[in-house]
């Protein structure tokens, strides 16, 4: 049954490509196509291998070599992979995270691919793939961030999903009074603190300000940044976060919520699988959008996008472009982002969204209630160096909020050096 479905999808996709794509029109693709992927976790790995198998079945003349690299290791290996004998297609991340490779001329400009008619369905992600007015890759999946919370604890305490900051603080006080922590977080690897900053800053000062800060156009010592930290500090001073979070990874912080010692977790949708593995049922687990802080700014959301790129040294550009078109086509998008595959959001507007409760909520939130804009996440929007210095400062702030002046001066010092 499954294989029949797969083959029919493949033929469908083949039909849609041959019908329109200029890159794969008259003659069949041939030669070697080398793909290096970072989709090393079990489910993504199966998706990637499936993609290659199906694409290979459509193009029997094409010999596809797939190399799968550990996802964390790839973050540093990509430099070597791109500089010496590069593969044709690689995985990476959207937005500013692409900058070093674009500046060094290691990613291929694929603006011509984006001019193809079928790419219109990906318009919403075009901005995240654009640097210097050109497009450098295609997205294949993205996921929402938000607050995952224990519905049963909320019901026990008679709480509802907060929509405003005041409701949020009142909820948190009630949770604390019941002897629990409001939020679990593990900040050992720093980035989790970046999520909190993204949300509080964009809710306080708006998306434009957040991006200006990411682009180095606003000093870190600006009063508006201080306002963000003042809002954040309200939660910290209440004792909203679990103790000793600087010693835990995000996975190690999860048992607090599974055991009911903490009520909520600001996280990406990839955490749902871990919650379910931990034994939480969909009756216990629910999701809400991060509450409004400043009613005058439109809500912006973190929705990190994972991408495919063509290396500038690619040998088989034609096949690489055809592969990118194939991955982003509506049917393939529906298939690979389905609940039994990646379990995330498809980038193609014509693709079907999985009927999973959390994916549905996320899709609804991002389509209807993210008018401020889509952020890619702290470590993808800010340049690499600023992100690393910044997240370290955020972690320190969460543990020692009194150090704020010192932290902001350090970040400002780093900003003046990095964005010269």
């Amino acid at each position, binding site marked *: 049954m499954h294989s029949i479905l797969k083959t029919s999808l493949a033929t469908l996709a083949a039909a849609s490509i041959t019908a329109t794509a200029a890159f794969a029109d008259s003659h069949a693709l041939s030669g070697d196509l080398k793909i290096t992927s970072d989709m090393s976790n079990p489910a993504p790995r199966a998706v990637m291998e499936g993609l290659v198998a199906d694409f290979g079945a459509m193009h029997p003349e094409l010999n596809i070599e797939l190399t799968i690299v550990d996802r964390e290791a790839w973050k540093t290996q990509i430099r070597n992979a791109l500089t010496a004998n590069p593969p044709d297609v690689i995985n990476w991340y959207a937005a500013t995270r692409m900058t*070093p490779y674009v500046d*060094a*001329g290691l990613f291929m400009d694929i603006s011509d691919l984006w001019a193809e008619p079928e790419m219109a369905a990906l318009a919403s992600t075009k901005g995240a793939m654009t640097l210097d007015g050109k497009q450098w890759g295609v997205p294949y999946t993205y996921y929402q961030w938000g607050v995952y919370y224990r519905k049963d604890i909320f019901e026990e305490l008679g709480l509802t999903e907060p929509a405003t900051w005041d409701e949020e603080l009142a909820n948190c006080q009630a949770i604390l009074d019941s002897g629990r922590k409001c939020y679990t977080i593990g900040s050992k690897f720093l980035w989790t603190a970046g999520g909190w900053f993204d949300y509080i800053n964009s809710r306080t000062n708006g998306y434009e300000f957040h991006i200006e800060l990411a682009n180095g156009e606003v000093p870190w010592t600006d009063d508006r940044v201080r306002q963000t930290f003042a809002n954040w500090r309200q939660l910290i001073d209440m004792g909203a976060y679990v103790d*000793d979070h600087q*010693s835990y990874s995000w996975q190690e912080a999860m048992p607090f919520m599974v055991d009911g010692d903490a009520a909520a977790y600001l996280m990406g949708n990839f955490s749902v699988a871990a919650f379910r593995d931990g034994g939480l049922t969909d009756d216990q687990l629910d999701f809400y959008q991060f509450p409004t802080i400043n009613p005058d700014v439109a809500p912006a959301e973190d929705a990190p996008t994972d991408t495919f790129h063509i290396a500038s040294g690619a040998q088989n550009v034609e096949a690489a472009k055809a592969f990118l078109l194939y991955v982003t086509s509506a049917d393939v998008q529906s298939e690979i982002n389905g609940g039994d595959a990646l379990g995330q959001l498809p980038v193609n507007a014509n693709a079907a969204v999985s009927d999973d409760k959390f994916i549905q909520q996320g899709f609804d939130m991002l389509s209807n209630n993210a008018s401020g804009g889509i952020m890619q996440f702290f470590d993808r929007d800010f340049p*690499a*160096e600023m992100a690393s210095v910044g997240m*370290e400062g955020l972690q320190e702030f969460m543990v020692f909020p009194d150090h704020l002046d010192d932290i902001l001066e*350090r970040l400002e010092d780093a900003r003046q050096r990095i964005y010269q």
Partner: protein
Amino acid sequence: MSTATTNAAPSRGWYKRNEIAITPWLFLLPAMVFFAYYVIYPICESFRISFYDWDGLGEATYVGTANYERLLFDDRKFNVSFLNNIKWLILYLLAIPLGLFISLFLNQTVRGIRLYKSLFFFPFVISQVVVGLVFSWFYLPKEGLLNAILAYFGSDGVNILGDPSLATYGIIAAGLWPQTAYCMILYLTGLNAVDPEQVEAARLDGAKGHKMLWYVILPQLKPATFIAFVVTIIGALRSFDFIAVMTNGGPFGSTRVLSFYMFEESLSEFGFRMGYGAAIAVVLFFIMLIFITYFLWSMYQDEKGAR
């Protein structure tokens, strides 16, 4: 017969004539080529890169000594890392007396002593990464064994690796465990070589206890002490693995040492400052050079004495 040899002499090849002088160099040649290519050349390259501003991918720009000026006079992270290196160098030396006492304790003939010796040596055999992991579990704020013990004595518990003022000491303690085992094994072999006649003579003269240890045993252990000192200093400068596994440089960078800082600036996920990383490497190189010079000088003195 003799005429034959004199006639043959001029016809001997160039190599035959210089055999004694050349052969050692021929044997040394492969090692020298590899050493030059894999050690000397990278060192020179590090010096060169340290004068550039380079992200490791694109064009490098020559910036003169700017990297060093920033590093030495205007970088708090460097100061923290340097200070931590000093802490490591000093506290890691504790492994030498600890190793000595354990070896003295184990240097006796009782049933099963081999087993006890192996158990004491065991931490040195397992990987540093595993030791780091075990200790980070031991230190865990709630679930860790350390806090369970402290709780038994009525203490509130302490988050060693999460506290910027304690974390480095926590990691050094973890590092001391295998290093003590290493020093112990060095001293155990050294104790085997102690001359029993000298001990006997000292005993007849009425030496015992710490006097015996200080004036008779320890001088004979001098070679072992020297080696223990060398490996401990080198171990302290190579503390990278423990830090990477136990705290990843955190909390807020308080456990960085120079080698970790170098990695972070130039090679890690967010590190794109090859020039700056190379400048740190050069500083670290000079620190190591102080010790290397001392080691070589002291070995040279020994050789001279032996002649």
